[in-house]
């Protein structure tokens, strides 16, 4: 009944990108899967995202980027989390991300990247399997 950890996640839109159809769908899918979801809204800087993630004590930050600036933006989020001693917050992402970049981002610390065609089921399942409330 009580003392049970709930999964808390954040869905964030870094940068000037306004493509939010995917991000908002993901937020709803997470809610329907029983997670508590904080959605940042559009046009967030990496700094704003990291600060919000820490204040909200989320277990995961899900970044969505379709406008090509993911390399700078995703990496900066990972770095800032590390700087704040919050590397235990899992970072995943999705959007229009070329295969080449997926490799780079994963080695930079982004745990998983979902690209167009990924089903909501697999996106939710990944969180259940890889994000444990701390």
């Amino acid at each position: 009944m009580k003392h049970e950890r709930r999964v808390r996640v954040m869905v964030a839109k870094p940068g000037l990108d306004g493509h939010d159809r995917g991000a908002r769908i993901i937020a709803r899918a997470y809610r329907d899967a029983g997670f508590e979801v904080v959605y940042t809204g559009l046009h967030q800087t990496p700094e704003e995202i990291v600060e919000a993630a820490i204040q909200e004590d989320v277990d995961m930050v899900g970044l969505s980027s379709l406008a090509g600036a993911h390399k700078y933006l995703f990496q900066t989020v990972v770095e800032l989390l590390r700087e704040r001693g919050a590397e235990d917050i899992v970072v995943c992402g999705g959007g229009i991300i070329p295969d080449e970049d997926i490799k780079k981002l994963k080695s930079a610390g982004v745990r998983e990247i979902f690209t167009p065609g990924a089903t909501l089921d697999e996106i939710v399942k990944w969180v259940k399997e890889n994000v444990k409330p701390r």
Partner: protein
Amino acid sequence: MKDLVEKVTSGDVRTVARLIRDVDDGMPEVREALKELYPYTGNAYVIGITGAPGVGKSTLVDQMVAHLRKRGKTVGVLAVDPTSPFSGGAILGDRVRMQRHSMDSGVFIRSLATRGHFGGLTQSTRSAIDILDAMGKDVILVETVGVGQDEVDVVRSAHTTVIVVVPGMGDDIQAIKAGILEVGDIFLINKSDREGTDKTLNELRLMIEMDQKKFDKGLWKPPIIKVEAVFDKGVDDFLAAVDEHARYLEQTAGGLKSRRSPERVRQEMVEMIKARLFEEVLDKLTETGEFDRAVDAIVKGSLDPYSACEGLVFPALAGLPDEE
């Protein structure tokens, strides 16, 4: 533990955030921390904001933060959103409206879900208020949707309780009368850029003035203020009214200490005991499997629920530890 207290009172964001999480998740360890932190509380001014869904509470809180920061106050925000009864999940949508303050180190914003656990919301929100208080925030703003009793109780425990309505609510005003009119220290008509503001104002005034006798005796008379939160209009007037109410509390109820008046403490203790007892007893019964067995028996018809309850509660109470 000393370390934790030190971190919280020096305003360490990560520690505070984690501690609120532990409170929210009902982690038993957190009780020790709350005990230790208690001496550092009692310095923040708490404002509760409630009203029907979508009336503009978060937009208003966002503007309040901006104004309070200009006055040099540090601010903590607790924004409560409903948990979906279907999935148990929630989209905590209030933060979006306040996100421009996220880089301001004088502001701490935390979204909470109602979660629907027994007595939990009021309990955990109160503890979260204590934590932000100990963290040193000057003002703490608590936003809840004014629908359930729990949500209303939360804002009620504030120094100043603000009820937000919008023009043209008509029938809803009647509903307020039944539920939360009594708890309002200040009434706001938000979205007063819309038609019907004056009509709503009059209706509210009539309703409040039904208690005129009380006010004649010098009790606080809730002012009604028109605001347009998105356009940042009327927020100064509103904050002036909060100041006014704070002065009234100062003169009549010990100011900041008014949240700890004998009645309030008594009431909160009752709630706390209720929640704690419930938790301890039910935990124990679930652990031993007695609870499930009793349910089975009732379902099968071999036991009546009244005897079952008696058979469970008293032994469980007797077996509760004196000290953990």
